[in-house]
């Protein structure tokens, strides 16, 4: 029941904001923050409930004649991602507190509706419900990005929309096919059906699933929509896209691709991993060459999800666990980094690395937050990125030593582009653009501080997260054995 509340709270909040069109921007912000904080609280309560009874489920008939149910459930993986979503949305809302958007209530309503869809995706147990939320999540984000975005937003976000919907349509074909075979829409029961299918069929299913999720994440060669979309969108939409929506793709790999096309995975995993690792290298190299800091982070996101995809496709526990930890770490870090980019842009009016420099001297606090989050992204030990990347690289190495060795380059390349970013923007002599840079305060600290703490907490106590996801990860691996 509490789980349903997690969906209903932001849904009601979102609809209410839609209807309260005329209210002032600050009121809309506060309502949204309140609702999203309540939802986070709900998430924590669900976590407590989960500790008592580890199998939470609710199920209502949705289209009874077709055996399609409104079926939600939580295991460790879902719970972790729900907590992540409910944790990040208030921060994303807070990150907009110093800015006024036109039609603010609609803007915030769309953020809350995105949250509903995300929580739906992460908890759906019925494959059609999953698909429903998976596609529905795109609609509010599309409008956020397109209407409030930069001057090229219309064409860029349109490309994103068409691209991702196109991928999702393959997903739809695959799930309708599976559903016809199994006469059930329950993902777990479908796994049994899928296992019995011949190898060629599973191979086709594999590609259909992969295309959908690969576009969403995105991994090479389906990434062409991503850098432009991330940099043209308003920052809250970018945060949602890189922090949470890309995780739907990763989650889909874990929840749908692995159990529903196991033989496809074992046949094509190496090939696909080669692609995603190539994307990782490619994204890193492009990130090194970027002078636009928002684009730089966008490419680094592209590189990071490539590594996660490779880890999941290994089908071993450390790869999977690593991907799960890295999903959380990357989401938190991406939100933090995009926020810092926004802070820099708001104060200097530029995102060009060449024009920046010397910010550190004026801003001790921002520098510390930036450094910690950046080190998390670089995967320094004792930060969140380290745990995830270590497990991922171990998993990939166990699967194929060569791929593992190439993927290991990510540590070096990541350090290069991130430290270059830090050095060019923050260090050095200040110039007229950065001379009057104010340090962060108020709502900005309220965003950066929790993120920084999570970066460190996950790095120092990774066991909490690993234990939470291990049984669920093991269940999925057992399904495909």
């Amino acid at each position, binding site marked *: 029941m509490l789980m349903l509340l997690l969906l209903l709270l932001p849904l009601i909040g979102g609809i209410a904001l839609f209807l309260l069109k005329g209210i002032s921007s600050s009121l809309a912000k506060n309502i949204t923050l309140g609702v999203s904080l309540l939802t986070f609280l709900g998430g924590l309560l669900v976590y407590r409930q989960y500790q008592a009874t580890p199998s939470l489920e609710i199920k209502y008939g*949705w289209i009874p004649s077709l055996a399609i149910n409104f079926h939600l459930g939580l295991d460790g993986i879902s719970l972790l991602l729900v907590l992540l979503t409910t944790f990040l949305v208030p921060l994303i809302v807070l990150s907009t507190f110093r800015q006024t958007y036109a039609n603010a209530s609609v803007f915030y309503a769309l953020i809350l509706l995105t949250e509903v869809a995300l929580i739906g995706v992460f908890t759906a147990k019925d494959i059609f419900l999953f*698909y*429903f939320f998976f596609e529905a999540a795109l609609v509010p984000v599309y409008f956020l990005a397109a209407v409030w975005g930069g001057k090229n937003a219309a064409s860029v976000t349109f490309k994103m929309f068409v691209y991702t919907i196109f991928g999702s*349509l*393959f997903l739809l074909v695959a799930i309708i*096919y599976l559903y*016809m075979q199994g006469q059930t829409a329950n993902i777990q029961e479908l796994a049994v059906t899928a296992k019995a299918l011949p190898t060629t069929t599973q191979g086709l299913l594999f590609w259909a699933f992969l295309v959908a999720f690969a576009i969403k994440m995105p991994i090479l060669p389906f990434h062409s929509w991503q850098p432009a979309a991330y940099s043209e969108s308003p920052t809250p939409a970018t945060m949602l896209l890189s922090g949470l929506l890309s995780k739907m793709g990763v989650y889909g790999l874990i929840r749908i691709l692995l159990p529903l096309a196991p033989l496809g995975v074992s046949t094509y995993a190496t090939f696909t991993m080669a692609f995603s690792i190539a994307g990782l290298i490619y994204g890193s190299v492009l990130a090194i060459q970027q002078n636009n800091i928002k684009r730089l982070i966008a490419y680094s996101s592209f590189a990071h999800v490539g590594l996660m995809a490779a880890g999941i496709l290994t089908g071993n526990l450390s790869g999977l666990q690593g991907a799960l930890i890295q999903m959380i770490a990357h989401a938190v870090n991406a939100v933090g980094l995009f926020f810092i980019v926004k802070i820099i842009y708001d104060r200097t009016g530029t995102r060009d690395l060449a024009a920046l420099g010397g910010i550190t001297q004026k801003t001790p606090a921002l520098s510390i937050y930036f450094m910690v989050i950046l080190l998390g992204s670089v995967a320094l030990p004792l930060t969140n990125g380290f745990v995830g990347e270590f497990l991922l690289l171990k998993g990939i190495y166990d699967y194929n030593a060569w791929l593992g060795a190439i993927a290991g380059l990510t540590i070096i390349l990541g350090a290069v582009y991130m430290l270059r970013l830090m050095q060019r923007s923050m260090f050095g002599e200040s110039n007229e653009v950065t001379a009057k840079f104010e340090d962060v305060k108020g709502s900005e600290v309220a965003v950066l501080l929790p993120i920084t703490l999570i970066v460190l907490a996950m790095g120092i106590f990774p066991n909490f997260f690993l234990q939470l996801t291990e049984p669920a990860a093991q269940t999925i691996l057992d399904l495909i054995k």
Partner: protein
Amino acid sequence: MYPIIALSITGLVTLFLGFIPTKKHLLPATLLFILVAFAVNFLDWNKPGFYFYEMLEVNNMGLLFSAIILLTGALVMALSGGFLDDEHAQPAEYYALVQFSLAGAIMMATYSNLLMLFIGIEILSVALYVLTGSDKRNIRGNEAAIKYFLMGSFATGILLFGIAMFFGASNSFDIYDMAAYINQTNDAPIYLWIGITFMLIGLLFKVSAAPFHFWTPDVYEGAPTIFTTFMSTVVKTAGFAAIYKILDVAFSQVYTFWWVMVVGMTVLSLFIGNITAVYQQSFKRMLAYSSISHAGYLLMAVVGFSKQSDASIAFYSIAYTLATISAFGVLMAVSKDNLVNGRPDERISVLNGLAKKDGFLAFVLAVSMLSLAGIPLTAGFWGKFFVFSDVAHKGYIWLMLVAILMSAVGIYYYFKPIIAAYMKESDGNTIQVRPIYKLILGLTTIGTILFGILPNIVRGIL
């Protein structure tokens, strides 16, 4: 059966009401009449049976289709605003013709004898030929009416020819007798097959399935928008109800014969409708081609031919109808005050900056386009889902793939109006929206979302 009688009477009454000098009462009266027909429609609910010497058959499915047709008629007519702005209009005649055509549409949904089907089609079509050309001073309207009339009567001729052929083979016009005949005969005469083919061609012309679609864009564009809306929704629902009924009752034994034809037309409709729609500048023409593509999706439900296909067709018709009324309603509200050469501007660019001028209309437009494109949260998604799973159930995965590719193309053009409304700069003109528009468009939008979230409503009713 009752709504046919009711509408025939009220249609005549409406003609006489036209003698009263003030025209204000005509619209409320018409709406009342249609709603009365809607109410009496349900007198037969759960009482399946035959009427008029077994020429009409009522069952819940037929009544559901009748209900959809009547509600569509009421919603569309409410948008007409009584034709009070136009001094040359003849509202009494228009409304009477609309009621007659609704009666014809209901015959098409509930017939059990091919003569009844033929009469229904004729009543519907003749009324529509007139309504298409009702704006006498518009040369495009006249062209459209003549085109529609010539091609329509030709198609009716083909249908009649098919019926005659079939009568020659089976000695009956009754679709149940035809089914019995097909069941018994082992070597059917060639003219039976010709009959089936010609009947299908005649019917598919009415729903503008390719390759019988050539009239659609010109007629949709030339007709006054209010009647385009009426035509694109009511005719499609009634036409598919009729097609499904004859295939289900009479020709289900010879599925292997007609499915090849239907599959061919499905694929053609999907390709021609979607791909041509991409190139349209006019919103009305774009919706005309989109209507061809939706005929293709609806035909998929026919190809998927199972016990659930009628529910799929009903659901799809509802989804398509709601979205189409929204889309044309927004177009009418916006283009009314934007004249180009004295005619309402119906290009997609007229929607530019709509979100800033009137957020409500922009929202209605966005929801309707998303629904036509088949994005989740809207009824259109489930409509597509049901027909896709129907064909998948039959094992035509390739057809589903084609349809899915074409849906991706669809997203491209359905987003043009959305982008125009939300991301283009406006010309600064303000729009006056009548309260009745807000009400009707609000209803269709809520309906679209409601059916998008609770898709079981239709199946639950049956």
